[in-house]
Each structure stands twice: as structure tokens, then as C-alpha cells.
């Protein structure tokens, strides 16, 4: 359903030493009806990969197939096949919650009647129904996030991309989200591609996992395979063994590394 073959993305001039290789020779494939978790530390290349899979970014080299189609060649056809919940905000904050749902429904050709029913069900599920007529600008961070997810689930695509969907969500909403996503997967056969920082979620939801670090895939397989490979008790343990324990910065520069070292040496002092 999703295939990436030797995928590369370089930002900046590839010949200069300032070029950033965000995604480096990434190969994986996601079978139809599978829940696939794409894990990695901050700045590992997860979002860049998703952007290349979802027609938002052209790969520097390598190939992508979504349901057999190349996003670079037939973007519109590919867009008809997936839905996405973005990591960062993508709501119109000058519109109301319901207007955001409506707009999305029209963009994705959801029939009017279905649109109304599903919008109501989803807004109720994520506890936003009472605030449906409020302008999104007045929403708290958690509410915006919930609306973002409700909107992403308004239509039923073949493939659902979830880019850190639970970031900033309370446990209740998180639970609702996973129940819903699993339901879509089992009942409607929706293929799910997700990224998350919460290893327990990936462990519970995903059938297969790939771990990416510094733009490269360092391991992939089922959760059990990864645990066996690293001899770790949990997916979290396996993840730390594979990617190390240093904290990553989105754009790690030598200066940042020095600052981090300085912090370590100075201990608690500022």
C-alpha cells in the first residue's frame, strides 16, 4: 500500500557542506490493512518522510508508491487515497470548529448528510460539540488538537497518516483516538501510518514498527522482533538501545552540542 525505495531528501545544495540530509536511503513497505508505526527521536526525519509520502515534498532521489501510484507524477490521484492528521496546526483559527469540519468535508467530497452525521459524532466523541459554534482562535491547545484529529477522521480514506497525533492530548482523548483508529483499521480496512513518541502506544497499536535515526532506518519489524533483536524488555527499551540516550535537537549544531556539554558540566547552576 505504501512503498518507499531508497528515499533521500537533502535540503540545500547537495554539494555544499551546509546541506542537510534529512532522509537517507530509506526503504520500507506497508501492507494493505496494516498499522505501521514510524518511530524516531526529534529531528530524525519522520515528518520529512511523511511529507514526501503525502505529495507535500518531492524526494531528492528514490521512489515512493502509494497504492501503486507515484505522488510526484499523479499527486491528485494519490491525494484521493489518504487522509492525514498533521503534527503542527493546520486549522483555520478564524473559523468555528464546525466550519472547519464542514470545509474539510467539502474538500474531501463527503456527502452533505454523512458530513453532518459524522461531524456531530466526532465532535461529541472529542467533547467539542458544545463549542462547535466557537471560533477556533478561542480554543485551548488541547481543544485545537482534538479538533484537528476529529477533522482528520471525518472522511474514510484508504490510508490514514497520523503524525504524532497524541502530542498534547489528555489520556481520555488519547484513548478515544486509538479506539477509533483501531476500529477504522479492523472494520474498514484502513491502512494506518503513524509516528509517535509514546512507545507504549506504538506497542499497543502497531503491527509493525520502523525506527529511524539521523535520517536512516536502524531497525524494522514487529514489536517482538525488535525486542528480540535488542534483548530489551519493552519497545521503549529497544528504542533507546537502537537510538542511544542523547537528547536530539531539531537542528543540532556543534554549538548546541557544546551548550549541552556546558550544561552537563555546570550541573544545576545556570
Amino acid at each position, binding site marked *: 500500500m505504501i512503498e518507499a525505495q531508497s528515499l533521500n531528501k537533502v535540503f540545500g545544495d547537495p554539494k555544499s557542506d551546509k546541506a542537510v540530509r534529512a532522509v537517507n536511503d530509506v526503504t520500507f513497505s506497508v501492507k494493505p490493512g496494516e498499522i505501521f508505526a514510524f518511530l524516531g527521536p526529534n529531528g530524525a526525519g519522520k515528518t520529512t518522510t511523511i*511529507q514526501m509520502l503525502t*505529495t507535500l515534498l518531492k524526494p531528492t532521489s528514490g521512489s515512493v508508491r502509494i497504492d501503486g501510484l507515484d505522488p510526484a507524477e499523479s499527486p491528485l490521484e494519490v491525494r484521493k487515497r489518504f487522509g492525514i492528521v498533521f503534527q503542527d496546526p*493546520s486549522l483555520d*483559527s*478564524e473559523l468555528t470548529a464546525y466550519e472547519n469540519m464542514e*470545509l474539510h468535508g467539502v474538500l474531501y467530497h463527503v456527502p452533505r448528510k454523512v458530513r453532518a452525521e459524522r461531524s456531530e459524532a466526532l465532535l461529541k466523541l472529542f467533547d467539542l460539540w458544545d463549542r462547535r459554534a466557537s471560533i477556533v482562535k478561542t480554543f485551548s491547545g488541547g481543544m485545537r488538537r482534538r479538533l484537528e484529529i476529529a477533522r482528520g477522521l471525518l472522511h474514510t480514506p484508504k490510508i490514514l497518516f497520523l503524525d504524532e497525533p497524541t502530542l498534547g492530548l489528555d489520556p481520555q482523548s488519547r484513548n478515544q483516538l486509538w479506539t477509533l483508529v483501531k476500529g477504522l483499521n479492523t472494520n474498514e480496512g484502513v491502512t494506518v501510518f503513524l509516528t509517535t513518541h509514546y512507545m507504549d502506544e506504538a506497542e499497543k497499536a502497531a503491527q509493525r514498527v520502523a525506527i529511524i535515526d539521523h535520517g536512516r532506518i536502524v531497525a524494522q519489524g514487529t514489536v517482538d522482533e525488535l525486542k528480540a533483536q535488542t534483548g530489551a524488555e519493552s519497545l521503549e527499551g529497544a528504542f533507546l538501545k537502537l537510538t542511544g540516550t542523547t537528547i536530539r535537537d531539531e537542528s543540532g549544531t556543534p554549538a548546541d552540542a557544546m551548550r549541552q556539554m556546558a550544561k552537563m558540566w555546570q550541573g544545576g547552576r545556570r
Partner: protein
Amino acid sequence: MSVIYVMWLREIKRYLRSRAQIVGSLAQPVLYMIVFGFGFSALFRQAGQGSSVQFIAPGIIAMGVLFTSIFSGIGLFWDRQFGFLKETLVAPVPRLTIMTGRTLGGATIAIIQGTLVLIVCMIFGFRPENWFAVPVALMFMALIAIVFAALGTALGSTMKDMQGFQLIMNFLIMPIFFLSGALFPLAGLNSALTVATRLDPLSYGVDGLRGAFIGISAMSFVLDVSVLVVLSAAFLGLGAWAFSKIQL
């Protein structure tokens, strides 16, 4: 069609909800009306050229339409900044329809804004010579609005930071406004300035509006309309192309 409609509706809703901004945006036309409409009235009288208020008002209306339409197009930049752009970019609809919807929305609010400026001008004493001129004037407002909303979309699609905005403001929008003849007669200029004004798309809009409202024009009605229609098509094409090329 429904996609064009929702994108259009979005622009209208956003506009109508920003009441404070609407009122604020009328401050500039008022200022221009006072400075150029009344400030130059003695000069106009000495030259025996009628009323400066009558002469300036169509130019100020054109200014209102120009700024509103081009900024609505550039609003695309803010959609990129606040993330909403992504939502429209991955939607399974041709980008041309998205772009058309928002450009028409931007053009519509520019026409509303132009009408508000017309009302402000009338409060300051402006009177169209002929009431039948109002529909013709509205047509010119619509043409100006489409030309510059489309140009704004093209600019907004390529702009990645606020520095770009300053550049566009100083080197494109202000020259378009000042060279359009909004504030001076287009006839009897020296040859360099004549060339500059004839290269400025807004000149044809200002000329058309002035012709409709007060019967003074430097170019023919047919020329004004044809230039604006051709430019609308060209800029819509340019905007659609730029919009279809957007990557994050």
C-alpha cells in the same frame, strides 16, 4: 463547484468577522481624501479644472480595491505560517479550484471594500455625475479586484518570509498605486511618465472608474476593459501555476 464555493465563503467569513480591521482599513482612504481631495482644492480651482474631490475619489476607490485584493492574495502567506495551507494542499481536489475559490473570495471582499470607500467619499462630498455609471464602476472595481487578487495569490505562493513582503510592498504595490494616475491626471504627462503609467495595470482601472464616475478619461473605454480582462486571465494563470508548484 462546491469547493470553489467553500473557499470563497471562507474568505468572506474571515473578512466579515474582522470588523475592527474593516473600520481601520477605511482610515487610509479618509486620510487621502482629506489631503488630496481638500488639500488640492485651491490648486484645482486656480487651474479652472473643477473639483479635486470629484477627481480624486475614483483614484481612492481604486486604491481601496487594489490594497484589499492584493493583500487577500498575499494572505496565502499567513495560511502557510499558521498551517492551514497544508490542509488545502493535500486535499483531493485540483489546486486550480482552491486557487479560484480564494481568488474570487478575495476579489469579492475587495469589491465590498471599494463600495465602502465609495460611501466614505460620498460622505466627503463626492457625487457621481451620472447614477447609471455605478454599475459600470462596479464592473471596473471587479476587474481591478480580480487582476490584483490573482497577482497577490501568485506572490503569496512564492513568498516564504516577511522580508519578502516588505520588498513587494515597496517595489511593487506602492509603485502600482502611485503610477496609476489615482492622484494625478493621466493626460499631458511627459513621455517617460506616460510610458510608466501605461505599463501599470491599475492605470486602466483608475481611468475606467474616472470615466464612469465623472466622465473624464485619458484612454478609451474599450482599451481599459480589454487590458484588464487580458491581465485578469494572465494573472489567474500565473497565480494558478504558482499555487500548483507550492511545496512545504
